[in-house]
């Protein structure tokens, strides 16, 4: 009796699924904005097919949202993550979850032509699902300031704003080289970047901020540590005797990470009062405001170079 019921339910379900799949197949597989006309290679090395003109875009990272607005295409952004809080206009755009768990149904419902993501991690299944819906996924993965400029140019190309993105990159480059010129010849300050205090995390070889520190006239004491954000040994931090400590805090972090970790309280940096709090949004987001972070770090580490 019971097995009969289960079997009939199974048959009905299968039939329904079959009918539905046929129904889906019968609708023409064409994106609403016409045929695919161009292909771009993203940072994951994937060939991404894009419609000629992109009018609906979703950003799944705060730095990409900032880039879309900075090149004057904010009006075409139809979705963003809950972390995308800059510029203030971005908050008017629909939310599609956070960077780790974006809501796939909401994204599809917003009918974007392109979804911009930063780093391909954890998005394998997700990307496949979107591609099945004829939504292009473009992956950016900047590891240094050049990578940020590349991201800006890529987004400019995708959205047909090449002129604006080119202009933005030129301006940012000028500011970056002004900083590098000012700190040129200055002795590099040995810096410890404290991403979080307890447990202790820092910026490793692959972190984008490591490149920013180099350009700001600093030498990160953890520059050779593999990975982007490694958990770091307390005793190695103490033994490194940094001359300055950078605490990214005050932005999205709020008041978190505003104190030096116990292992570094007797370090030359802490003793001489060379502990600098810099807005974490500038340093953690590889977007246009990274240059603000670069300038803030350089001014903190080499005040005499900016008189």
């Amino acid at each position, binding site marked *: 009796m019971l097995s009969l019921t289960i079997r009939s339910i199974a048959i009905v379900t299968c039939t329904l699924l079959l009918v539905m799949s046929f129904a889906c197949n019968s609708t023409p597989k064409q994106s609403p904005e016409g045929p695919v006309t161009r292909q771009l290679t993203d940072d994951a090395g994937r060939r991404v097919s894009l419609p000629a003109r992109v009018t609906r875009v979703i950003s799944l990272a705060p730095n990409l949202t900032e880039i879309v607005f900075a090149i004057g295409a904010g009006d075409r952004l139809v979705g963003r993550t809950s*972390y995308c809080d800059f510029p203030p206009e971005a908050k008017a755009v629909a939310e599609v979850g*956070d*960077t*780790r*768990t974006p809501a796939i149904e909401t994204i599809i419902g917003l009918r974007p032509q392109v979804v911009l993501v930063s780093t391909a991690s954890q998005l394998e299944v997700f990307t496949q699902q979107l591609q099945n819906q004829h939504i292009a996924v473009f992956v950016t993965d900047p590891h240094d300031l050049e990578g940020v400029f590349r991201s800006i140019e890529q987004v400019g190309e995708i959205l047909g704003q090449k002129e604006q993105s080119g202009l933005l990159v030129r301006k940012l480059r000028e500011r970056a080289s002004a900083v590098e010129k000012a700190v040129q010849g200055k002795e590099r300050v040995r810096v410890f970047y404290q991403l*979080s205090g*307890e*447990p*202790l*995390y820092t910026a490793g070889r692959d972190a984008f901020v490591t490149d920013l520190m180099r350009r700001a006239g600093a030498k990160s004491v*953890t520059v050779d*540590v*593999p*990975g982007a*954000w*490694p*958990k*770091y*040994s*307390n*005793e*190695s931090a*103490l*033994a490194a*005797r940094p001359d300055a400590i950078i605490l990214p805090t005050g932005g*999205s*972090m709020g008041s*978190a*990470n505003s104190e030096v970790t*116990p*292992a570094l309280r*007797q370090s030359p940096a802490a003793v001489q009062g060379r502990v600098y709090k810099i807005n*974490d949004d500038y340093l953690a987001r590889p977007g246009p405001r990274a240059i603000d972070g670069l300038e803030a770090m350089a001014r903190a580490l080499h005040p005499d170079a900016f008189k």
Partner: protein
Amino acid sequence: MIGTTRDIAIPKIRQNRVTLRKTLIYCALLAAALLLAIILMSLVGSERLPTRASLCALATLGTNACGLTQDQFDILFQIRLPRILLAAAVGGSLATAGAGYQALLRNPLAEPYLLGISNGAAVGTMIALIFFGANEWVRPLLAFTGAIAATFAVYRLARGRAGATPERLILAGVIVTTFLSSVIVFVTTLMDATRIRSFTFWLLGDLSGTSKALLPVAIVIAVLGALALTFNARSLNLLMLGERDAFDLGVEVGRVRIVVFLVASLLVGSSVAASGSVGYVGLVVPHLARLSLGSDNRISIPAATLGGALFVIVADTVARTIIAPRELPVGAITALIGAPLFIYLLKRA
């Protein structure tokens, strides 16, 4: 009646003396091994310290720097040694709690994790971290409260008409564990990305944030807890025969059960508050103790305490040196060593 009591009393006293001597010998051996491990493991780390000078400084208990620079001295006494002592306290606490639960429930799989008590403590700690930030005193207090609440929930869920059978207790534990795991997942999903990294690390068990205020608390609780359970070891031995038989032999079953549950919760709460969830210690170490020294709780409980301390000290040394200057969570190492070891023990038994 009186005659028979006297008849069995004499060999029993002799037997007790033998057990006491055996316990003291094994505990002395294990304590010596523990002391040796503390000294040896404080000589290794991500930074190289001069061995001779370090040994000299350790021998004088830090009163003489023996030629160590200020930084080296700080590394040894401010960072390494406190962390090793915390590892010992956490390992001892978890293994003692595991041994206590296993004896009380007559179930070799009974363990703080399986019963949901660790998760209760983890939820308590999480609440403390979210609402009270880094306050050192609220954390263990709420962890203990969480452990007690989870224990109470398991106990009430398990109590049927026929009393709390071991099977029902384990099942109730599984239910509470999975429920609390969902709570943890739910809360971590709500937390923002900047805090999630450190939190997931902590959930796996991490000894790097050794707090000066928590360390003495954790050590005192570990020692007192181990003593309390060892003093109840004879009752636990009788309880292993069955609650009815134990009751007939004069064991206050209800009192012993409450004492063991409270003490074990306290042990789990203090260790989770200090280091997050370090797994497998409460399962593997008491097993190892019973397999090598027999199932007399008067020996196996103190042996498990010392063995657990030893186990976590070694595991944490691996965690902090194997990819230095980066670090792994100690829980990953205890699970990597513990899971295969446990399978081996199960196959052999």
